[in-house]
């Protein structure tokens, strides 16, 4: 009697666990592909003003405004999920999310693993230095310590200048951290995207810093990143981006014309 009761309990446990697990599986597939109406979008909400969390925990920013406009244009529903920069790539690769928006620059290396939409924004790298610094161009950073956000295109550019494994590169988790490394004297300059650097300067007028532009940086184009072979979604997004460009709505959001 006792034994059978135990067996029953074990059986009940297994059933409930398997039910739970199958429930999870269904939930996932609902989120990722679903009925083609609702799309799950991954982002790294630590990149003001492009994507960040407001004081109520909502994900907002220029990127988010653009994707909202795209969604409206394409007649789809969007759910944002904050993944963080590195997990975002594996989430797209595994099909956990439909696409990612996070100021992701379209590069040839990334194109090997992912598909991108047409560019919806362009950026260039800026150099941020203390006001009394003698740095005038990117080349002047050759014998200096430079802080960047880890694994961004700014990091790539600085790696090209100083060497892949140089110890003069201070690569931090976020751009605000990279800037504070420079302010605290751990680095002579910080390199990052124009939007973020300008936003920082605007928000901290009392910190004595100057911004240096350099034409040697390649212009970078942001794209929506999706899993390879996702042509249907790419087409849908590209159509929407094109009509936003045509109607001038994209220019309204970004403040400049994206060709």
């Amino acid at each position, binding site marked *: 009697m006792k034994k059978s009761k135990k067996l029953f309990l074990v059986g009940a446990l297994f059933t409930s666990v398997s039910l739970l697990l199958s429930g999870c599986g269904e939930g996932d597939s609902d989120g990722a592909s679903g009925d083609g109406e609702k799309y799950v979008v991954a982002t790294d909400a630590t990149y003001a003003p492009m994507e960040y969390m407001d004081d109520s925990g909502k994900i907002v920013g220029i990127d988010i405004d653009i994707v909202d406009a795209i969604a409206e244009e394409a007649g789809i529903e969007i759910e944002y999920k904050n993944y963080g920069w590195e997990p975002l790539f594996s989430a797209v690769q595994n099909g956990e999310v439909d696409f990612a928006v996070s100021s992701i620059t379209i590069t040839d*290396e990334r194109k090997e693993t992912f598909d991108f939409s047409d560019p919806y924004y362009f950026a260039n790298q800026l150099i941020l230095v203390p006001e009394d610094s003698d740095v005038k161009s990117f080349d002047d950073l050759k014998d200096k310590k430079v802080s960047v956000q880890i694994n961004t295109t700014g990091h790539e550019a600085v790696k090209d200048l100083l060497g892949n494994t140089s110890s003069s590169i201070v*690569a931090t988790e976020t751009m605000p951290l990279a800037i504070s490394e420079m302010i605290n004297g751990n680095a002579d300059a910080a390199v990052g995207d124009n939007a973020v650097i300008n936003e920082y300067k605007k928000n901290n007028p009392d910190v004595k810093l100057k911004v240096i532009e350099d034409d040697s940086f390649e212009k970078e184009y942001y794209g929506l990143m999706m899993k390879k072979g996702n042509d249907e979604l790419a087409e849908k997004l590209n159509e929407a981006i094109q009509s936003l460009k045509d109607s001038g709505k994209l220019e309204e959001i970004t403040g400049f014309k994206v060709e």
Partner: protein
Amino acid sequence: MDFLDAIRWDIVWNYRDLFIRGLWITLSLTLLGYIGGIILGLLLGMGKLSKKKWIYYPSKYYVDFFRGTPLLVQILLIHLAIIPTIFGHSLGYFVSGVTALVLNSAAYNAEIIRAGIQSIDKGQSEAARSLGMTSKMSMRYIILPQALRRMIPPLGNELIALLKDSSLVTVIAANDILYAGKVVAGAYARFWEPYITVAILYLLLTYVFGKIITYVEKRFSNSYVPPKKKTISVTDRGRVGGIGR
């Protein structure tokens, strides 16, 4: 084997300098943090045993704070707030990293040392005192040598834990092992090869540390027999190398 063919160790090899530097940075952060942590921990552990309130309470609150807050927060606080405020500028990730690890592991060591000392029977110090030793002498010659032996296993644990915890300094861009892994993972958007390499390097270090700890434990254990005197008869064994018998 598609899976094995797809593995690309060359991406790790391209960044080998970063991994080698990471190994040294992790190793030196850990060892400096550990040595500093033991010295400061010894003082704090004694402080927690002190009857003087002005020694006891600061030691107690110190341990409470550093055991009660995450190391990650301590690292950020020291690197971004405390050191820049005191010195006017940052002293680099290495100084911040060592400082954080010393301060953090001292709190844990203090408790290990306090518990070790308290575990020695009161009769031991009473006997020492009755032989005419001062309380300082009885602590130094009678209590500490016995307590030290009991502290070795938990202190060894602390070394391994500190080694792994040192990976948190990656957040202040310290060029440790994990940092190298992150850079490679980001450069290629591949995660297997870099993080497996990181895991293997940590495993290598913990393995070596584990061997050293086992050796030290054996060396100071009660039943230790010096290798050269293996011929000594069984009945004599208890006396050889034993402490406090």
